[in-house]
C-alpha cells in the first residue's frame, strides 16, 4: 500500500481476518472479507461489525455551543436532550451541504461524527466560523459499528445496559472492561450501535465481539449496499456543496422552530426552496432487468436532453434487483414516474421508487426484552 495511505488501529486485525484492503478517505480500509453479498445479507439477518474509524470524531464545547452550532446546522440543538443524537447537515452560506453528520449532546458539549473524507475541511470550517468554540478532534479514538437485528443481543453480553438505549440515544458504557461511548444508531437501516472507544482498545473489543458466532466482520462494500437499500445518502456522491437539504430530500433534518426562525447558513435559499419546491430532487429508482445503473449515469428526456444524474446505484442484495438514487427535475420526482437512464451508451428504463427500498428496523421505544 502506498506510503501516503494512513493506517487505522485495526489495520493488522483486518488483514488477519482476511479483509481485502483498499485506500479509502486516505486510509487503508477493508472493502470486503468473505464477499459483499454474503456480508450484506448477514447484517440483515444477524449482526455485522464495521470498522469506521476513518470517520471524524469531534468534541465541540464552549459557551452557548448549541446556539453557535445552530448558525451552521439547521437542526434543533437547543432542545436536544443529554445523550440524544440528531442527524444534521453542516451548511455553507449558499445553503449547500459541506457535510452530513451526527451530533450528540454530551454533557456540556456536543460529540459530533463527520465523514472521513471531509473531516479536516469540516474542522477548519467550524474553527473559522465559530472561533468562540473549542473544536477537539478525537483522533486517538476508534469507531466501531455493530449492526443488525441481533446486534443488541451480542452487544448486551459485553456492554450490559445498552439494550435500554432507544434509536438515536447514547451513553457511557463499559464494554469488556473498556470505557466507551455507545449510541443506538447506524448507517444500515437496521437496529444497531456505534461504539466510540480508545484506538488502543479497538483490537480487544473487535476480538471480543467477533468471538460471538452472531457477529461477522463487514467491509465497506456491504456498508455501501446496505445504506443504499436504506435510502441513506452518501456524502461526496449524493450530497455535495452545491446541493441543499431540500434538494437532497433531507428536510426532516430542518426542525420546525428552525423553519420558522431561520438563522442558519443559507436560510434564505433553503426557506425559499421549502416554500416553492427545489428545482431538482433526490429520489430513489429501480431498474428493469438485472444490470446495475451506477453513479454518473444520465437521465434523458424524450428529446435526449439531460434532465438528471444518478448519484448512487448498484445491485440490491436483499431485493435482487438494481436500485439507486438520482437527482431529477422536480416534475419527474413523483413515485411511479418512468425515467430513461443512459450509461455507457446504453438506455435503461427506470421507475421512481419510494425510499427506503428495504424497511428500516429501528428500535424507537423501550428496551426489547426477549
Amino acid at each position: 500500500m502506498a506510503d501516503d495511505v494512513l493506517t487505522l488501529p485495526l489495520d493488522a486485525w483486518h488483514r488477519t481476518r482476511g479483509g481485502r484492503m483498499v485506500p479509502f478517505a486516505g486510509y487503508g480500509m477493508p472493502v470486503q472479507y468473505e464477499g459483499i453479498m454474503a456480508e450484506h445479507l448477514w447484517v440483515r439477518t444477524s449482526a455485522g461489525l464495521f470498522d469506521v474509524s476513518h470517520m471524524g470524531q469531534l468534541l465541540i464545547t464552549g459557551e452557548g455551543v448549541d446556539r453557535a452550532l445552530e448558525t451552521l446546522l439547521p437542526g434543533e440543538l437547543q432542545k436536544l436532550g443529554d445523550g440524544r443524537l440528531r442527524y444534521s447537515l453542516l451548511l455553507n452560506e449558499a445553503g449547500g451541504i459541506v457535510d452530513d453528520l451526527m451530533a450528540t449532546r454530551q454533557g456540556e458539549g456536543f460529540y459530533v461524527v463527520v465523514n472521513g473524507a471531509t473531516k479536516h475541511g469540516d474542522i477548519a470550517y467550524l474553527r473559522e466560523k465559530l472561533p468562540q468554540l473549542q473544536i477537539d478532534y478525537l483522533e486517538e479514538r476508534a469507531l466501531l459499528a455493530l449492526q443488525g437485528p441481533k446486534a443488541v443481543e451480542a452487544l448486551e453480553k459485553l456492554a450490559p445496559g445498552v439494550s435500554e438505549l432507544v434509536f438515536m440515544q447514547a451513553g457511557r458504557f463499559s464494554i469488556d472492561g473498556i470505557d466507551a461511548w455507545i449510541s443506538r444508531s447506524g448507517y444500515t437501516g437496521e437496529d444497531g450501535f456505534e461504539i466510540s472507544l480508545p484506538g488502543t482498545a479497538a483490537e480487544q473489543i473487535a476480538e471480543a465481539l467477533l468471538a460471538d458466532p452472531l457477529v461477522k466482520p463487514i467491509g465497506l462494500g456491504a456498508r455501501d449496499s446496505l445504506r443504499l437499500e436504506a435510502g441513506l445518502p452518501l456524502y461526496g456522491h449524493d450530497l455535495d456543496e452545491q446541493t441543499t437539504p431540500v434538494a437532497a430530500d433531507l428536510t426532516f433534518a430542518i426542525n420546525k422552530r428552525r423553519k420558522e426562525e431561520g438563522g442558519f447558513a443559507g436560510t434564505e435559499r433553503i426557506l425559499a426552496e421549502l416554500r416553492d419546491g427545489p428545482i431538482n430532487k433526490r429520489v430513489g429508482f429501480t431498474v428493469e432487468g438485472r444490470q446495475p445503473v451506477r453513479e454518473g449515469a444520465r437521465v434523458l428526456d424524450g428529446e435526449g436532453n439531460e434532465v438528471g444524474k444518478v448519484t448512487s446505484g448498484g445491485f440490491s442484495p436483499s431485493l435482487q434487483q438494481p436500485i439507486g438514487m438520482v437527482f431529477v427535475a422536480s416534475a419527474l420526482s413523483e413515485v411511479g414516474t418512468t425515467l430513461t437512464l443512459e450509461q455507457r451508451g446504453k438506455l435503461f428504463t427506470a421507475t421512481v421508487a419510494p425510499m427506503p427500498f428495504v424497511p428500516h428496523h429501528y428500535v424507537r421505544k423501550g428496551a426489547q426484552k426477549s
Partner: protein
Amino acid sequence: MSLYFTKEHEWIRVEGDTATVGISNHAQQALGDIVFAEAPQAGRQLKKGEEAAVVESVKAASDVYSPVSGEVVETNDAIAEEPALINTDPEGEGWFFKLKLADPAELDGLMDEGAYREWSSNL
C-alpha cells in the same frame, strides 16, 4: 484442445476451429459477487481485443474483450439467468460465448495456462 489466457484475464479454449471464451478464476475473485452478465449474440463478428461482453459485480462493471477475432456461434444463456455461475465455475459452466476462429495465428500471442497462473498470482 488448448487453453490460453489474456492479460485482461479472459481464457480461451480451442477445439479445432472453435473457441470457448470466459473469464478466469482470478478475474471472478477480483470482481466479487457477479450479478449481471451479457454475452454477445450468435452471428456477431468480433475483432481481437474488441469489447465482447459485460460482467458486473455488486461493486463494479467490467468489460470482457474477445481474445481473438471470429464470428460468435453460441452464447451461454445460463450466465444471464444465473450470473453467480461465473463465480462458482468461471472456467467451466460460467463460459460466455463460443466463436469460430478467423485467424488461428492470433493465438500465438496469448499466454498458456502455466504462464498465466504464475503471472496472475503475482498481481
